[in-house]
């Protein structure tokens, strides 16, 4: 029973840890499917986290916080679009720039506005997204096996967790069942064909980037308003890059993305749980190995040893009309 409880706990933290990855990963999916590489997921999450926590604490409302997080994150996505779509700049360079601007400005503005060493004030419980207890969760807690699964794993998360997981089928539906999704995939594979059909490549790509901004904004809000009660400098800590890795791991497909993020979240949860405890057969696993595992797995996948990851064909190439 102890083992079972331990497993439930690890799975519960797996869900919590994989939500920001999942949101960022789906965000990346929109832009990369439309042919725009986005190294700047990290930065957009960070500004989202900052804007969310800062405005939630100023306006005393979690929903205003979420709205601001999305707004600012979309603004940054549009800067990326302005550089890489309108001015046909290098998309990777632009993404790197966004990460820098985000990292610097969140700390500096945070320090200038709140004077807490780059933090935002700790959020009160009504300024955060609290846990939603599902009906009957407490009643069934004592039921063996199923009880804890229902009350710990399924119930008791914040609304953003459910949003993240619902975004997966929604993204699948948008991508594979709507006209917008079809065109978006087409623009990522062969923009010239889309252009010939009389559809604006730039506007399509801008719309994809807006979707990206919305999702990274929610991811940021989750970090600073659910996982943590306020903004802490550099709180994304490479999650944007892990999300990018997960996106490649998922071969740019939404459902795969969910499993990839759950896997990376699980590795993270496990490494926290196993800190210092020896495993049977393998012995003591260094924490650093567990932390590096998502990156190592992605490199192995990229090397083509576990299937082949083929990115959208027009990814990273600015579209030049009439040539």
């Amino acid at each position: 029973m102890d083992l079972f409880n331990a497993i439930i706990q690890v799975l519960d933290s797996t869900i919590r840890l994989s939500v920001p990855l999942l949101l960022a990963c789906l965000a990346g999916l929109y832009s990369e499917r439309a042919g725009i590489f986005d190294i700047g997921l990290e930065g957009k999450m960070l500004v989202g986290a900052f804007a969310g926590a800062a405005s939630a604490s100023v306006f005393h409302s979690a929903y205003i916080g979420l709205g601001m997080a999305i707004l600012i994150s979309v603004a940054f996505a549009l800067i990326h679009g302005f550089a890489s779509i309108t001015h046909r700049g290098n998309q990777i360079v632009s993404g790197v720039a966004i990460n820098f601007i985000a990292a610097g400005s969140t700390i500096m503005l945070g320090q200038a506005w709140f004077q807490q060493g780059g933090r935002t004030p700790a959020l009160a419980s009504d300024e955060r997204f609290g846990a939603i207890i599902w009906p009957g969760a407490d009643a069934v807690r004592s039921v063996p096996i199923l009880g804890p699964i229902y009350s710990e794993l399924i119930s008791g998360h914040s609304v953003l967790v459910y949003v993240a997981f619902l975004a997966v089928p929604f993204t699948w539906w948008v991508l594979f069942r709507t006209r917008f999704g079809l065109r978006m995939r087409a623009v990522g594979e062969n923009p010239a064909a889309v252009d010939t059909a009389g559809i604006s490549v730039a506007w399509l790509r801008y719309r994809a980037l807006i979707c990206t901004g919305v999702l990274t904004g929610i991811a940021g809000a989750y970090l600073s308003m659910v996982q943590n009660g306020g903004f802490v400098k550099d709180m994304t800590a490479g999650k944007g890059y892990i999300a990018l890795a997960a996106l490649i791991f998922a071969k740019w497909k939404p459902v795969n993305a969910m499993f990839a993020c759950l896997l990376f979240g699980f590795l993270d949860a496990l490494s926290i749980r196993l800190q210092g405890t020896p495993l049977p057969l393998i012995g003591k696993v260094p924490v650093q190995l567990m932390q590096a595992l998502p990156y190592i797995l992605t490199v192995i996948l990229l090397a083509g040893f576990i299937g082949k990851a083929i990115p959208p064909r027009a990814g990273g190439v600015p579209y030049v009309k009439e040539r």
Partner: protein
Amino acid sequence: MSTPYAKLPAWADYGLIPVINLAVAFLVAGFVVLLVGENPFRAAVVLVEGAFGRGQGIAFTLFYATTFIFSGLSVAVAAHCGLFNIGGEGQGYIAGLGIGIVCLAFDSVLPWWLTFPLAIVAAAAMGALWALIPAYLQARRGSHIVITTIMFNFIAASVMVYALVGFLKPPISMAPQTRTFLEGAQLPKLNWVIELFGAKIRSAPFNVSFLLALAMAFLVWVLIWRTRLGYEMRTYGHSSKAARYAGISETRIIIVAMMISGALAGMMALNPTMGDQHNVALEFVSGAGFVGIAVALMGRLHPVGIVLAAILFGMLYQGGAELAFEMPAISRDMIVIIQGLVILFAGALEHMFRPYVQALFASLSPRSVGIEAIKGKGA
């Protein structure tokens, strides 16, 4: 891929446009200063005075510039071959492992002028090795070098934590860093050069690795513009198809370019470890690898430009420290914002002002922009 823009005179292309881009970046940075309620003009004065006002400041500026010359060159060499090496951070970090082992082994027996070459070789070798795997994967398996080098940055961070905690730190110490290097692994200072001009320096970590950086800048110039290998690299960078047609081995050129780039990134670790802190500590690279991207873009991938851009960024780092001291509302993170803005305007948006400059040149003297040549394209 050819640029869809008409040509400008060289001095405008390499001088005017970067200056305009830089000016816009600083203008936006000025707005940020305004946003936190400080005077941007006073901030600029404090920044420049902090960097160049006294001998002490100049020495620190050049100390920071040393690291950035290496990381800028690293990005530039790869970029000439059409590769975006975003992994300088990790390659520099992992080079600390090589430096640490060499210094801990030899600092008690050899003088610095023998330890230094050994450490250079170790650092370059580790950096090159760390770039080798992404290069091989790009060349042979077609995995995107940007993604793999990012992943290797994170893997390097994990390896270094493991190495520092596991065996590099002295057993009795808690801090994850090596013991302080002895005399034999401490690079001599160059502060006396600045003092020759009459400036006074209390203590600054400006050291001989600056000379190594200048030598490397020269060697990179020779490599890129005066050797067959450099020619092949540039050919591949311009058009991989043309390179293949010319019989240049794709695998070889990618791997060689990335290993040179990695070696240069590795050498950037010499300055902060042997030149300043006299140990190898956690996170000692602290973003210098990424600064290299900004430096290389600013310097337009030319060693002379890179040295100048590195000094500019050294100035920002040193002046930024003074600024944070003088104006409490501005923290050192201002530099990170400026860095980002420079990368945005000098890199991603480098063509934004080009049409206007072109229009200006065309109205002044049509021949300078080759108007006849582009008329046919309907421009």
